């Protein structure tokens, strides 16, 4: 989708404002604000127990918020039971009704809404063909493979034409190959239908490849919402920097707007908005670092370079991963492996450098790794 025109509250598919959910003394979701646009493929990402599933369940109506506003297309729904909300869910492990055929599973929602048996069945068959399960209507869920069950779960939810489709770890139960296949399929299905998909996952790669935007949650808090590039290149704190992809987090102190000083005193060019003296961390992606001999550092990178010793090399086929110790501070460096590339053995003295746009300064508070 070209420019991000995230709508205003009125036409946002889901608008969450100041929503908190407490279970006894445990704060599962802590005062979050979030807007999901119509037609958006939106991921909620975080480690288990971060509150992402609780948030999804609140949108579905399976939990009620302790407080806050939850709107779907402008209508307040926070206190509506799940059967009164225009959303449907694809459950983790699918939760298909084991005693019903595929057809009855898919027709269930329509029947509950009062559709006649005939109408429900014909709409259900149509949806079953759409997810490429034509001919399997009579089977029981236990007679289907994992991938097929997941399609039934999708059909069962989508046949109701929900305004928002919620997916709870939808691909978690599938093996790697099938998962990659389904990622593409989900994505194209979503484009075809134009319905907002909100899905919960703990797998950052899945979130990065599939979604238009991603919300990163931790300990009930919403840390950052943005596109994959925004999260990857401009994380708001150490947790996001570390959780999305791999990164080197180096402790530092702000010197001025453009310069920070590392623990060993080395000054590094790193534009930042923090006042001098602030403790910060520099996030540096392993793949944006170049490696060479101690004297190979090009002049223009002098202010974004360090010298150290290789302590470990791992060959990954397409790349080499070096651990470079800079005054006992280990940094990971990843270089493309080509037949001509020089390999630095452990013990070699090396220089490492990077483009000044590749380092990124995050505040030091919270979420150490």
């Amino acid at each position, binding site marked *: 989708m070209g420019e991000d025109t995230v709508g205003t509250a009125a036409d946002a598919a889901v608008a969450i404002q100041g929503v908190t959910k407490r279970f006894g003394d445990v704060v599962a979701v802590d005062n979050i604000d979030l807007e999901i646009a119509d037609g958006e493929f939106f991921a909620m990402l975080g480690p288990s127990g971060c509150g992402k599933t609780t948030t999804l369940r609140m949108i579905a109506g399976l939990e*009620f918020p302790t407080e806050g506003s939850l709107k779907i297309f402008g209508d307040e729904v*926070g206190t509506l039971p799940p059967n009164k909300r225009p959303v449907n869910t694809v459950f983790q492990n699918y939760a298909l009704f084991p005693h019903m055929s595929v057809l009855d599973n898919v027709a269930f929602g329509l029947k509950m809404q009062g559709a006649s048996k005939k109408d429900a069945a014909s709409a259900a068959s149509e949806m079953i063909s759409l997810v490429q399960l034509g001919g399997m209507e009579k089977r029981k869920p236990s007679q289907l493979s994992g991938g097929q069950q997941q399609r039934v779960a999708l059909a069962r939810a989508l046949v109701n034409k929900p305004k928002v489709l919620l997916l709870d770890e939808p691909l978690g139960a599938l093996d790697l190959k099938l998962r990659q296949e389904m990622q593409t399929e989900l994505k194209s299905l979503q484009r075809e239908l134009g319905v907002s998909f909100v899905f919960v996952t703990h797998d950052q790669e899945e979130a990065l490849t599939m979604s238009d935007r991603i919300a990163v949650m931790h300990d009930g808090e919403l840390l950052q919402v943005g596109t994959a590039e925004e999260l990857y290149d401009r994380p708001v704190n150490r947790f996001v920097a570390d959780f999305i992809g791999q990164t080197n987090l180096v402790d530092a102190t702000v010197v001025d707007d453009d310069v920070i000083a590392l623990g060993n005193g080395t000054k590094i060019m790193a534009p930042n908005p923090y006042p001098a003296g602030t403790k910060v961390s520099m996030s540096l992606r392993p793949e944006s670092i170049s490696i060479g001999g101690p004297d190979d550092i090009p002049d223009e990178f002098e202010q974004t370079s360090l010298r150290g010793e290789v302590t470990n090399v791992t060959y990954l086929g397409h790349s080499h991963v070096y651990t470079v110790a800079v005054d006992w501070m280990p940094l990971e460096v990843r270089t493309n492996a080509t037949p001509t590339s020089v390999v630095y053995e452990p013990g070699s003295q090396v220089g490492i450098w990077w483009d000044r746009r590749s380092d990124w300064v995050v505040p030091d508070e919270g979420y150490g790794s």
Partner: protein
Amino acid sequence: MTTTSPAPSALATPEFEAANEKQKRRRGFLLALPAYVYLSLFFAIPLFIVVVYSFATRTRSGGTALEEWNLDSYRKLGEPIVTDILLRSITLAVITTVICLLLAYPFSYFLATRKETTRNIMLVFVMIPFWSNFLVRNYAWRVLLGNDGPVSQLTETIGLGETTVLFTPTAIVLGLVYGFLPFMILPMYAAIERMDWSLIEASRDLGATGFQTFKKVTFPLSMPGVIAGSILVFIPSLGAYVTPQILGGGKKTMLGSYIVTQFLTARNWPVGAAVSTVLMFVMLMATLIYFRKGGRTL
């Protein structure tokens, strides 16, 4: 019932959440209520009455006077007649439990190591006696052990003379084992079956002999089943009434028969109630121990 059902599109508030929780709790309570009331009326109150009666006094006419509460009935439990019966009951119940253990353990182990289909068929044939009429099964032994019964005929034919087991403690134990063996097998089988078999392999792999493995690994792992089975056999054996009546001839009574006699013939209700209370207490303790030890199901 008009519960406070908030307007459909209200903003979520802590009050709404609390009201919703409360409504859910009430729904659960209402669902439990009929059985709750029923069991309070027809179980808890009767239980209470028995305990009350155990402190009452027997009148000369065989009635029960509730006015003067005392511990006479419990004192009576110390008299030789009762302690004899108690000791005999405990001895027979222990012997029964031990025999059941010895038969059931290898059986359950064997069962748990069969292929699934074989195992299921074997299990059904354990379930049949488990569910079959207890009275009838005891009666079968009465027929077998009778004067000219098949067992006696057999022993006479092979020159061992007439069998005179009927109406002896041996017959009672035989009947109890026959009646309660499934109670031992089922929990024991369940425990052995869900054991982590790789641990046994690991033990063998580490050089333990078959016996060492059994002693150090298999047996401790199957302990929950052993405890559950023992309790399930010991408790009903202790309170058995039907078996001593049919196979023991009622000559040397056990605890269960003694209680029944106190109520139906001797008409000494307070003493009967006191013995019942003690029996109940023992049973409760055993159950608590079982749950403490991590037992889950009975």
